[in-house]
């Protein structure tokens, strides 16, 4: 649906030039829920504004359904945006806002009225049709903004951190709502967020961005389980990074020796690795802890701190190598607190839980 080819965006000129985006290449498929995820200032909003047409690329091109739209103004693109602050027209009613795009497209009055009603039903706002936008709550404004952007039936809907202004409960509701809207309308959604959980729960695919570059594109599971590099691993989920030495690479297996002791044979997910020092990612929830057996291959540590979270407990350990390590164990009622700070424990894990990073 959208092909972004080698796009670079530079703001300003000369000494003050700032490169907001660097060599961005993305293909977004039809009817996909695609998320741009990254910390603030990573360029995700700039990329969204480029797709909307508010900015034009410095180099590179953008195709929508095979047609080059790089230089088209926003009002000529079949793309609509849900703005971060909603940007509802304060001098119009809810219905007036939703009708705006359709009126601009010159649709007949009867069709406009009919579509507005359908949109109001879609976002469940029928009763508030004739309210002023200043008289409705933030969550309702959010729905109106969605209905307004969906009403002209764009090919692509852009969402610029639309949930960031809502409280937690409403945000969860809207996440489900957005997924429902996307599957009901069949429109391609491009969603910008800095909230990793939001990205993981809603997206078909995620592009993780930092400093104007895309670090990795993949499904939520790919990104979480097999991050390309330390930035992606760190940005999404909690991570333990350990130093280790890689050797004996054979086909898709290799031998890994942790700085903290223990040697394991691990499956390799990537071909671009060679013998030597590497960084290793282990997710805190992929391990468990047990009494040390005295085996020299064991990864052992001392509990420094225990934090209780209700559903689970975080054990902060210091490994024999001095590296910090966190294990997250689910709580269950049969297992009362049997460990305390200062206990020496062994870290148990499956070889599949170990991800070798390229850095």
């Amino acid at each position, binding site marked *: 649906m959208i092909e972004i080819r080698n796009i670079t965006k530079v703001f300003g000129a000369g000494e003050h030039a700032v490169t907001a985006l660097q060599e961005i290449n993305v293909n977004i498929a039809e009817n996909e829920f695609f998320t741009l995820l990254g910390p603030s200032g990573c360029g995700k909003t700039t990329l969204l504004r480029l797709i909307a047409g*508010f900015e034009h690329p410095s180099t590179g091109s953008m195709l929508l359904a095979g047609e080059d739209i790089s230089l088209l103004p*926003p009002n000529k693109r079949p793309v609509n945006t849900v703005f971060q602050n909603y940007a509802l*027209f304060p*001098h*119009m*009613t809810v219905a007036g806002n939703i009708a705006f795009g359709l009126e601009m497209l010159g649709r007949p009055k009867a069709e406009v009225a009919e579509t507005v009603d359908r949109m109001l039903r879609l976002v469940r706002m029928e009763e508030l049709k004739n309210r002023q936008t200043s008289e409705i709550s933030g969550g309702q404004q959010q729905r109106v903004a969605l209905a307004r952007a969906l009403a002209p039936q764009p090919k692509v809907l852009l969402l610029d951190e639309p949930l960031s202004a809502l409280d937690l409960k409403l945000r969860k509701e809207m996440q489900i709502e957005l997924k429902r809207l996307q599957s009901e309308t069949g429109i391609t959604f491009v969603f910008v967020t800095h909230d990793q959980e939001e990205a993981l729960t809603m997206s078909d695919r995620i592009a993780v961005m930092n400093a104007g570059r895309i670090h990795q594109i993949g499904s939520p599971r790919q990104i979480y389980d097999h991050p390309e590099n330390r930035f992606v691993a760190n940005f999404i989920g909690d991570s333990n990074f350990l130093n280790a030495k890689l050797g004996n690479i054979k086909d898709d297996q290799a031998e890994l020796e942790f700085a903290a002791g223990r040697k394991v044979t691990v499956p390799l997910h990537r071909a671009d690795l060679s013998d030597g020092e590497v960084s290793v990612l282990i997710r805190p929830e992929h391990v468990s802890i047990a009494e040390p057996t005295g085996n020299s291959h064991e990864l052992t540590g001392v509990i420094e701190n225990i934090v209780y979270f209700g559903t689970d407990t975080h054990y902060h350990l210091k490994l024999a190598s001095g590296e910090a390590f966190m294990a997250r164990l689910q709580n269950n009622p049969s297992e009362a607190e049997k460990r305390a700070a200062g206990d020496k424990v062994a870290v148990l894990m499956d070889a599949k839980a170990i991800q070798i990073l390229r850095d």
Partner: protein
Amino acid sequence: MTVQADPVTVDKAVEIERDARRRDVRMRWLLSAPALTIITLFAAGPLLIVLVYSFLTPGNYGNVKWIFSIDAWTNVVVQRDIFDNTLQWADAHLSIFWRSLKLSIVTTILTAIFGIPTAYFIATRSAKTRNLWLFLITIPFWTNLLVRTIAVQELIRTEGVINNVLRMLHIIDTPIQMMFTDFAIGFGMTYVYLPLMVLPVYASIEKLDFRLVEAGYDLYASRWTCFRRIILPLVKPGMIAGSILVFVPSLGAYVTPRVLGGGKNLMFGNLIELQFGQGRNWPLGAALSISLMVLVMVALIYYTRISSGGDKQNG
């Protein structure tokens, strides 16, 4: 366990509360006394004097005789023919009313045409240059009105800058007569009152959230439609305020029409001045002043009604 209220205590409580309320009322009057004094002394008082004077008889050398008469009020709209004593419309007054109204409306429209783009231009500059532009707009305010009006005269008189330039460029052979015409008055008033339009419009444009314009642009509106459907309705309050600020003083303008219009193109302000000066007819001057006030009020009520009525259609 219920507590039986002692009737004596209840009475006492009521009394205490009544006292407190009385003290409250007294306090409120005391606190508003300065404002009330100023309003009485400087607004209501003089107005009352004007109203009383309008029902008196003119004195021989100005001033008034304390004899009740409604002549002044009838003279506002009709006049008695000195030969056959019949009543006729006071054509002179009516044409001056009309000219004042016409020129004030034209001035308001012209200040809007020049002022709104100016305000938009200033509001869209960077914060630092914005202040510079605002400063430039307000500079004329610090100059005496008469001096500014004479400056306009320098521009438009027969031997003035405009005529000289046009002649040098051989666009015209004989100078255009601009002084002492309605054009001169309109031109002068537009120049004098322009800041009164620019400032309130600027204030409302500056408050405008330009992301709304982006939203309109995103929803297939052209730039012009964005202006008409989004910017214009949202800066309307500023435009209404600016129009009132320009229209009201224009209607009673005195210095500018006097200097640029000469003796023959009178406006309302000049007519009133004439009665208190050479005319020595203070009651008529007073009646004309009150007529002007009523005219302004009617115009404002009408104006706010049509402009707020337009609001509803927008929804």
